[in-house]
């Protein structure tokens, strides 16, 4: 789950890290009032879940409250990468002595969170790491023991930072590491972390992402502290009708799992496939052999006939889909006969001939003999494990190309 900058700043603030006196506004009038309260030059920043705000004109500077209101009005109307902002953040223009970077990410190899710090802030940390590795400090934290201030201090000191700056930056990084762990974050970044002319440190921009699996246990932060609605899931893109329909069919019945995606797919071969790894392998195999998938899907966990039927029907009703390929890696829990019933029923309910519509049926494993009997009755050829996933995909592609030629 991704957060807007104003929310990420709130999270930082809740963890006891100093921030500037910023305000989140949804109208130009509100922006004027916040700028008046600030009483000096301000920065107006678009609140949108995409990068490249500066380039797109989503960040503007203002000297007066009137100017702030004007910029706010413009930015509130400005779409960035196709997304409308939810508001603007009005921030005092800070008197900066130096910019730093403070961040915490997961290190999957070490299986621990990794603290990162650089005295070259304000730019992309990956770029700094590549060009100036000596300016990046790193240190893992334990998942079991409390995070000690000294651990943060070691990371910062490794970049050569010393004196009172070291002592002031240390609690910021330590608190960031604690909030990362406490809030199930995937990413917690303050960039830039600014040292102001008076020597104090403040978070000028923050970037946070929470693991979706943890959303259920972070209700206090999400609902109470940040006021984010339950249905506001912050997906990367707007789900298609196909995706919504498949999701609804899946949710209506607890037996088994079906998933369907068609974002980025626009071909004529419908895929009714599974399970996780099998679907990835099969989608590649179809494409490598010149096939054009109309969608991606996954069947798993032994779904009901109605569920398998529902998925197949949704795939068959997509624009341009002529045939479906029903293929899975060897199943041990999902039953071959149940999936066979589901896909044949989908054809019949849409008044299509299963023998013509099902380009291939390749699911070996549990109840395969029963499945073969059902398919045989409807004139659909059954392929067992002697037909590889690659060959199954190839046969499906050949059939559809033969049909449309």
């Amino acid at each position, binding site marked *: 789950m991704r957060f807007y900058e104003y929310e990420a700043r709130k999270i930082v603030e809740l963890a006891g890290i100093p921030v500037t006196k910023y305000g989140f506004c949804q109208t130009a009038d509100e922006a004027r009032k916040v700028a008046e309260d600030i009483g000096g030059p301000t920065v107006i920043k678009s609140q949108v879940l995409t990068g490249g705000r500066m380039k797109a004109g989503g960040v503007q500077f203002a000297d007066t409250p009137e100017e702030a209101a004007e910029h706010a009005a413009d930015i509130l109307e400005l779409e960035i990468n196709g997304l409308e902002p939810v508001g603007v953040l009005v921030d005092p223009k800070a008197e900066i002595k130096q910019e730093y970077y403070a961040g915490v990410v997961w290190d999957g190899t070490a299986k621990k969170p990794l603290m990162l710090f650089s005295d070259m802030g304000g730019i992309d940390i990956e770029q700094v790491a590549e060009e100036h590795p000596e300016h990046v400090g790193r240190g893992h934290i334990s998942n079991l023991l409390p995070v000690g201030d000294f651990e943060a201090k070691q990371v910062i000191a490794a970049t050569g930072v010393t004196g009172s700056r070291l002592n002031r930056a240390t609690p910021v990084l330590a608190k960031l590491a604690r909030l990362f762990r406490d809030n199930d974050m995937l990413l917690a970044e303050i960039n830039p972390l600014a040292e102001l002319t008076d020597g104090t440190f403040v978070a000028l921009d923050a970037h946070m992402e929470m693991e979706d699996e943890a959303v259920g246990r972070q209700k206090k932060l999400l609902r109470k502290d940040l006021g984010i609605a339950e249905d506001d899931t912050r997906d990367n893109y707007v789900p298609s009708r196909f995706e919504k329909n498949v999701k609804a069919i899946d949710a209506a019945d607890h037996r088994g799992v079906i998933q369907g995606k068609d974002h980025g797919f626009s071909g004529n071969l419908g895929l009714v496939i599974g399970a996780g790894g099998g679907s990835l392998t099969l989608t590649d195999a179809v494409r490598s052999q010149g096939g054009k998938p109309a969608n991606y899907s996954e069947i798993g966990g032994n779904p*009901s*006939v*109605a569920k398998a039927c529902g998925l197949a*029907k949704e795939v068959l*009703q997509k624009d341009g889909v002529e045939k479906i390929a029903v293929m899975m890696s060897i199943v041990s829990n999902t*039953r071959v*006969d*149940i999936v066979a*019933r589901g896909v*044949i*029923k989908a054809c*019949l*309910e*849409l*008044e299509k001939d299963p023998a013509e519509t099902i380009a291939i049926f390749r699911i070996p494993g549990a109840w395969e003999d*029963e499945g073969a*009997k*059902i398919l045989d*009755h*409807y004139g659909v050829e059954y392929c067992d494990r002697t037909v590889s996933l690659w060959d199954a995909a190839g046969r499906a592609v050949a059939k559809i190309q033969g049909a449309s030629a």
Partner: protein
Amino acid sequence: MSAPKSLESVFIDVRIAEPAASDVELAKTLEEVCPVSIFKATDSGSEIVSGQLDECVLCNLCIEAAPDGAVTIVKKYEQ
């Protein structure tokens, strides 16, 4: 999009012979043992929920719960 038609019992048929079909106690047992809710117990005995027939998982629990030969499962695709 117009709703496509919905078919009942394409693959499976379940029959209960008399007098078992009118046995109110047996009806309750059948309703309980079937994992996919094909049987419904009523005041006059067992009723078949036709919309559920195709969900039959061939577990035979209904056949075992009823007197010999009282319940038959027909696989239509074998006919």
